[in-house]
């Protein structure tokens, strides 16, 4: 296994925590040898490991009740994978270091507006293990459930989140939830606000082309980073203890420019591999994005929605272009294929 100098430095010598963004076993070993201290999964990643490594999961799959269908079946398949990794993470969790030793499990992406459904599902997922983090969408409904979960002491992450107003709403929800938890004598769990920096860039790139905007590629690849740096400053200013989580990175720039921040970085194996060639060990979180870049990006209405503190109201979150694109991908490439996955014995591939 190759030494990844950058990731070892990032995870060992800075305040940044590194989580591994995959559920594939062979990739996991490499991630943890480089200092990963947690795992993010989503329906796509669960589907990928169940289909690509069926023999390994066979024993756990055989313990599932036969004939499960639809959403119930998918939830059990997610549990099968997440539960395994939660056990693996437990020794790290027992060390008691904030932000270390967890694994994420996401609620049904088909129900991003349905608070009641998501709350019931979140409670079930939280019961799987003490170090499972329930991933909810950063919609108005999802953030409502987020607060409820904080109040109950569950670990929660708000995902399908790309913008400053979304993560601020999540930070506020945690503060409210913590006050309620304190009243009931409940200890709050881990709180995460994901910011999908590369996915925002991808979306804005298409929008910029479509409207023939002034922003060029060098501006676009800094859009998510700019939002992240602004959110990080605001979280520190307001004293939120919710961990920001940069995710959906598309290049090493996203990791390099945020290095040193007290955040949890979700890094996919593809990015980890690209980081092997990086020798610049420098904390760059406080280096601002070039104001000219921001200036050009601000021509775009969709960037202003993402960057401005009041760029969107909570009711707008579910309508944001990136949210719809990402949710659809989670459904089509994760949840739906899992619903079609034949987990019965005799299907060994």
């Amino acid at each position, binding site marked *: 296994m190759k030494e990844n100098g950058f990731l070892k430095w990032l995870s060992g010598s800075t305040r940044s925590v590194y989580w591994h963004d995959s559920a594939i076993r062979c990739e996991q070993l490499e991630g943890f040898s480089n200092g990963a201290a947690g795992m993010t999964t989503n329906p796509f990643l669960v589907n990928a490991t169940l289909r690509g490594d069926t023999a390994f999961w066979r024993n756990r799959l055989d313990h599932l009740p036969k004939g499960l269908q639809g959403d119930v079946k998918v939830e059990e398949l997610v549990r099968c994978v997440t539960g395994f990794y939660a056990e693996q993470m437990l020794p790290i969790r027992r060390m008691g270091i904030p932000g270390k030793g967890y694994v994420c499990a996401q609620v049904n992406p088909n129900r*991003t507006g349905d608070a009641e459904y998501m709350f019931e599902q979140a409670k079930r997922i939280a019961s799987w293990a003490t170090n499972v983090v329930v991933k909810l969408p950063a919609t108005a*409904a999802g953030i409502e459930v987020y607060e409820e979960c904080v109040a109950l002491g569950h670990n929660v992450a708000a995902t399908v989140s790309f913008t400053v107003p979304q993560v601020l709403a999540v930070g506020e929800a945690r503060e409210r939830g913590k006050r309620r938890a304190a009243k009931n004598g409940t200890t709050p769990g881990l709180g995460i606000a994901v910011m999908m920096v590369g996915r925002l860039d*991808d979306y804005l790139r298409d929008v910029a*082309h479509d*409207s023939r905007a002034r922003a060029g590629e060098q501006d676009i690849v800094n859009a998510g980073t700019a939002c992240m740096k602004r959110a990080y400053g605001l979280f520190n200013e307001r004293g939120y203890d919710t961990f920001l989580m940069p995710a959906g990175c598309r290049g090493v720039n996203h990791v390099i420019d945020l290095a040193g921040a007290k955040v949890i970085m979700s890094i996919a194996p593809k990015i980890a591999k690209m980081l092997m060639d990086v020798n610049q060990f420098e904390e760059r979180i406080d280096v601002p994005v070039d104001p000219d870049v921001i200036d050009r990006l601000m021509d775009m209405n969709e960037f202003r929605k993402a960057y401005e503190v009041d760029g969107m109201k909570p009711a707008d979150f*579910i309508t944001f272009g990136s949210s719809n694109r990402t949710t659809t991908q989670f459904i089509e490439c994760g949840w739906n294929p899992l619903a079609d996955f034949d987990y019965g014995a005799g299907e060994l591939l």
Partner: protein
Amino acid sequence: MNYLEWLDQCTSTTWWHDSGNPDEIALAIRRGAKGVTTNPVLTYRSLQSQPDFWLPRVRTLRDDLDFEERAEALLELVATYAAEQVYPVYKTTKGRNGYALGQLNPARAGDAEGMLLQARRVHSWGENIAVKLPATAAGLDVVEHLVEEGIPICATINVSVSQALAVADAYERGKKKAIASGSAPPLCIVVQQVGRLDDYLRDVAMDMRLDIPESDLRMAGLAVAKRTYARFTQRKTDCVIMPAGLRGEYHITGMAGGNLIYTINTRMQDMMLESDPEQRPGIGDPVDPKIIDSLMRIPEFVRAYEPDGMTPSEFISYGVTQKLLSQFYETGWAPLETYLSSRVSTRWI
């Protein structure tokens, strides 16, 4: 006379078949279909559902095609097959009907230059193949160019009145130039995605806790399509509406008799033949104003329903647009890029 025959023979409405499956196309033509609509998803499904039919043809493709070229070549196989089946209709109706469709890469929805080049290639597949492209600002530019060049088009990923009117405007601009240069203006179909809008608004309304009854939500797409139809009639445009994404009988009976084209898949054809509704034109029936009032409480419905609900630069960022583009790409175009190929996709998830 069954309902589909009545629709075809006794009203101004025609209907086309909605899939690329050879057996289903043959059945639909016997039932009176006058054209075939496909998209990347239906193309991929056709290859999978009748592999014995397609395999010998797929094997003739070169293996060194790049990702986009491979997807395009597979779309060409299915589109040209479908076009041959309805060519007699194309001849007898003098180009009013009898088309198959070739859809452009959904990942290029904001890329006018790339779409224009791809569109010319698609048109070269056959004279009765119409180019299917998105109703984004970039797509509108391409519509104008193609109409000027006399290339038949079908504007899709259209869920709002303002998008449909913008397509009609672009068509009229292109038509003027075509006439000035002595060429005949081509067919222009404007898809109106009825069911997809309903699905989106259902999620948004629930997220906002607006408590809008399902009986109102399911009329949203139909209300938008009827309003577009009224505007088109008033303007005497040559553009023809194609309601698509049909979810139930009411989507067909609700606009039956109009000067429009339905696209109906085999399952819906079976449903109409089975339920055999009253053979009565529903195009003149307005949607209950109380239902419109109820739907107008959803800001996203207002954007879809009002003729000036969105500006062209907002089309690409509208929630349903992103959902549809993502679905077309993830479950259609992307799998086609690597279908039976030795190449592994490099796309991000």
